[in-house]
């Protein structure tokens, strides 16, 4: 898809906005991090975004012009235009807002907005609720299923292919229902791209499911036992949850890489996701470097909100880990209970066989049957324990790690700003020195450098403010999602417990008359 810039076909208001935009490249700068300071138009990028470097510090984002796309998405997008306007303050409120902060300068492109042709003033007049409604109405009308795991190939080169089915009424997709085949590394590749693009500017990108060399090897080697089936099922469910979380994020949903992942039948192989590849090792090195940096950055936190939130997330992390460990123990013990109940059932059946009192013998056989059914019940409950409860907790532990990562990026961003200020100061001092030494040619260079660094400082400040703003929004959204998620999942889990008890009642009620019948 070649990217093309279309002149916005809208009314007068548009050009006015455009002027605004062109004057302040900051708009792009703020939504797009390390953009070159040249005021040139955004470069067309080509899909697939292979030119994205794995440099975690902010490569050029892919700026895709979305020709097909229509209204609603851009309604919110244009709201972002108001960054520099006085209306900025409401946007900065810590409430969760549904507004999208697009990375791409698609604000410029307002294709065929029919009835939604809004003037800049009109945008600001629009109530928050309206926008929210629109966002909710459109954003969440997408359903993703991951199914049909299929083994492709043989031996160590084998892999599992999963069917990813999307059902949506969103207009940005070509069809309403479509499916593609993807393998695990494709998912990792998608996450890697999204993380690289969005995390350093403050977006909480849902983490992908974890790799498991042991699990995968078993599958590759072709062990058809229950543990490898379980592993595949666990992975399938995790991939599904991962995609569902990702598309719920209004900004990520618009990302072309995500769309390509969901839609296109062929996807370039993401080789850099292998753990032992060069890129993998580079990632590990970067992670280590980050960890060291984190320890050395002492940020002057001017905003208490961030400090508070970080502490809260830290606590939440600890508590969730503890709960997760307990639930994992529960899963394990319930599986044991199921196995022991099955063993007892067999033993009771044997005992019933050797009992020579007929009625008692029959009752013991019935007992054995009941216990066998109960063992099945325990197994199903263990299943629910795990897939409903335990996995949710695991997901959130990883999500919180992503949230922490985003906070770290903000720190790095602050550091960069501070560094720029320091450098500017140095340059000024150097210039002053040169002035005294009276070296005109070097002086000009020094002045140029000062200008350059002044811009950088300004940029740094803007970046920092932007990332702070984005994080506030993201955290608000995250908290809302978290509350909803937990409530839904826990209620679902409790309902599974209810079912188990109801079944138990049925079984024992059937047995009781048998026991009483022993004469």
């Amino acid at each position, binding site marked *: 898809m070649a990217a093309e810039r279309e002149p916005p076909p809208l009314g007068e208001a548009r050009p006015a906005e455009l002027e605004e935009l062109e004057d302040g490249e900051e708009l792009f700068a703020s939504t797009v991090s390390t953009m070159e300071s040249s005021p040139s138009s955004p470069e067309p990028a080509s899909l697939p975004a292979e030119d994205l470097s794995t440099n975690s510090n902010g490569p050029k984002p892919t700026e895709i012009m979305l020709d097909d796309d229509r209204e609603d998405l851009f309604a919110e997008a244009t709201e972002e235009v108001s960054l520099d306007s006085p209306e900025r303050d409401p946007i900065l409120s810590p409430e969760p807002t549904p507004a999208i902060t697009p990375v791409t300068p698609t604000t410029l492109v307002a294709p065929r907005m029919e009835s939604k042709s809004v003037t800049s003033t009109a945008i600001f007049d629009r109530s928050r609720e309206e926008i929210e409604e629109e966002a909710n109405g459109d954003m969440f009308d997408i359903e993703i299923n991951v199914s049909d795991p299929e083994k492709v190939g043989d031996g160590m080169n084998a892999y599992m292919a999963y069917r990813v089915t999307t059902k949506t009424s969103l207009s940005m997709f070509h069809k309403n229902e479509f499916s593609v085949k993807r393998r695990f590394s494709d998912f990792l590749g998608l996450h890697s791209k999204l993380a690289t693009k969005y995390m350093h500017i403050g977006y909480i990108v849902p983490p992908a499911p974890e790799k498991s060399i042991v699990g995968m090897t078993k599958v590759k080697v072709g062990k058809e036992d229950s543990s490898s089936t379980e592993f595949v099922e666990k992975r399938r469910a995790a991939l599904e949850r991962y995609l569902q979380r990702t598309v719920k994020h209004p900004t990520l949903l618009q990302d072309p890489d995500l769309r390509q992942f969901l839609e296109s039948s062929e996807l370039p192989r993401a080789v850099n996701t292998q753990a032992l590849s060069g890129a993998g090792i580079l990632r590990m090195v970067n992670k280590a470097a980050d960890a060291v940096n984190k320890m050395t950055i002492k940020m002057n936190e001017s905003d208490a909100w961030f400090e508070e939130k970080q502490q*809260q997330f830290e*606590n*939440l992390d600890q*508590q*969730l880990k*503890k*709960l997760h460990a*307990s*639930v994992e*123990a*529960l899963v394990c*013990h*319930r599986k*044991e*209970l199921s196995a*022991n*109940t099955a*063993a*007892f059932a*067999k*033993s*009771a059946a*044997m*005992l019933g*066989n*050797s*009992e*020579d*009192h007929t*009625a*008692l013998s029959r*009752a*013991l056989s019935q*007992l054995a049957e009941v216990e066998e059914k109960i063992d099945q019940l325990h197994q199903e409950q263990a299943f629910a324990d795990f897939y409903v409860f335990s996995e949710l907790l695991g997901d959130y532990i990883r999500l919180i790690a992503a949230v922490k990562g985003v906070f770290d990026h903000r720190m790095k961003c602050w550091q960069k700003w501070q560094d720029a200020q320091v450098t500017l100061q140095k340059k000024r001092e150097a210039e002053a020195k040169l002035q005294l030494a009276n070296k005109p040619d070097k002086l000009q260079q020094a002045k140029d450098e000062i200008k350059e660094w002044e811009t950088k400082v300004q940029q740094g400040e803007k970046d920092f403010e932007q990332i702070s703003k984005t994080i506030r929004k993201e955290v608000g959204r995250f*908290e809302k999602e*978290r*509350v909803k998620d*937990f*409530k839904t999942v*826990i*209620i679902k889990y*409790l*309902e599974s*417990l*209810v079912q188990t*008890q*109801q079944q*138990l*009642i049925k079984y*024992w*009620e059937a*047995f*009781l008359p048998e*026991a*009483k019948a*022993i004469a």
Partner: protein
Amino acid sequence: MEGHLLALFLNLTEGSQQEGSDDGPDFLSEEDRGLRAINVDLQTDAALQVDISDALSERDKVKFTVHTKSSLPNFKQNEFSVVRQHEEFIWLHDSFVENEDYAGYIIPPAPPRPDFDASREKLQKLGEGEGSMTKEEFTKMKQELEAEYLAIFKKTVAMHEVFLCRVAAHPILRKDLNFHVFLEYNQDLSVRGKNKKEKLEDFFKNMVKSADGVIVSGVKDVDDFFEHERTFLVEYHNRVKDASAKSDKMTRSHKNVADDYNRIGSSLYALGTQDSTDICKFFLKVSELFDKTRKIEARVSADEDLKLSDLLKYYLRESQAAKDLLYRRSRSLVDYENANKALDKARAKNKDVLQAETTQQICCQKFEKISESAKQELIDFKTRRVAAFRKNLVELAELELKHAKGNLQLLQSCLAVLNGDT
């Protein structure tokens, strides 16, 4: 026949289900004693009624207060109590086993030794780990372990009491002199536990016995009844052993699940108190649910233990006692046959004929006596067994239902609240 004890498993621990309202491990509530009385055979009530009215747990021994009510002339008073320890019960049991006159009866199995080691170890570990957990967690676990200790304690009391009641109900054994001494003599019986030498002797005796048992069991019995009983008992005993072990494992798994609920409840509570969003109320409610449901699950485990595991364990011991009876009978049969052969030989040689005749007479009488009572004993054993299984299986099913319904109600009301809130 109600003439036999129907309930060999006393309903002690059922009464203990009110957490926290229990007395310390040293006292038995009035209620418990009342329940037990119902289970004792009514026919023997007037003549001889024995129970354990109290028990005291000291460092490594348990002191049982054996209380007797009797209208029999053998005793000096109508009602009296003595304090006995486990070793004295064993002494009494062994005296029955060694008594030739009782060879034809199923000797009620000896109660197992009180074993608080596991529980004590857990309590100790808890004490050591006190620093690593929150105060609530610690209190919770301590209460749990104390309840566990109490349950074990009550069980051991029940086992000892069952033994005495069985003896008291047996028409012949209840008249045993040692038994009366046991019940009445209010001084220490000075039965020390066996020392090393005696334990070694016992070991050899057992070996000889089992070797002999193998030889003796090879002898085919003419009597169909006993032949059938032998085949039945051997197989039954093995299967009961297996079922008992598996039931134990199942019960323990249930307990583990209940323990996990406990920890989950605590974690949810911590989450609920620390969360800043409106989900904290939610967490607290769910935490409460887990606490309550855990209590029910723990009870399920305890009831399964009592009604199923203990039942199987007891019949494991009883079936062994029945096997022992069969062995003694077979032994006497072999002796009888040998005496016959000796008599024939003596007659042939015309030497010591009188002596051989006497021996043969004795053996014959012994064998016939054993056979007669053994038959009745085995029939009674079956009746007892069927009745006990019936009672316990019915009670098991009723309790499981009660708990499942309780759980269901808890869950449903919690869900109603949670759904109402959101």
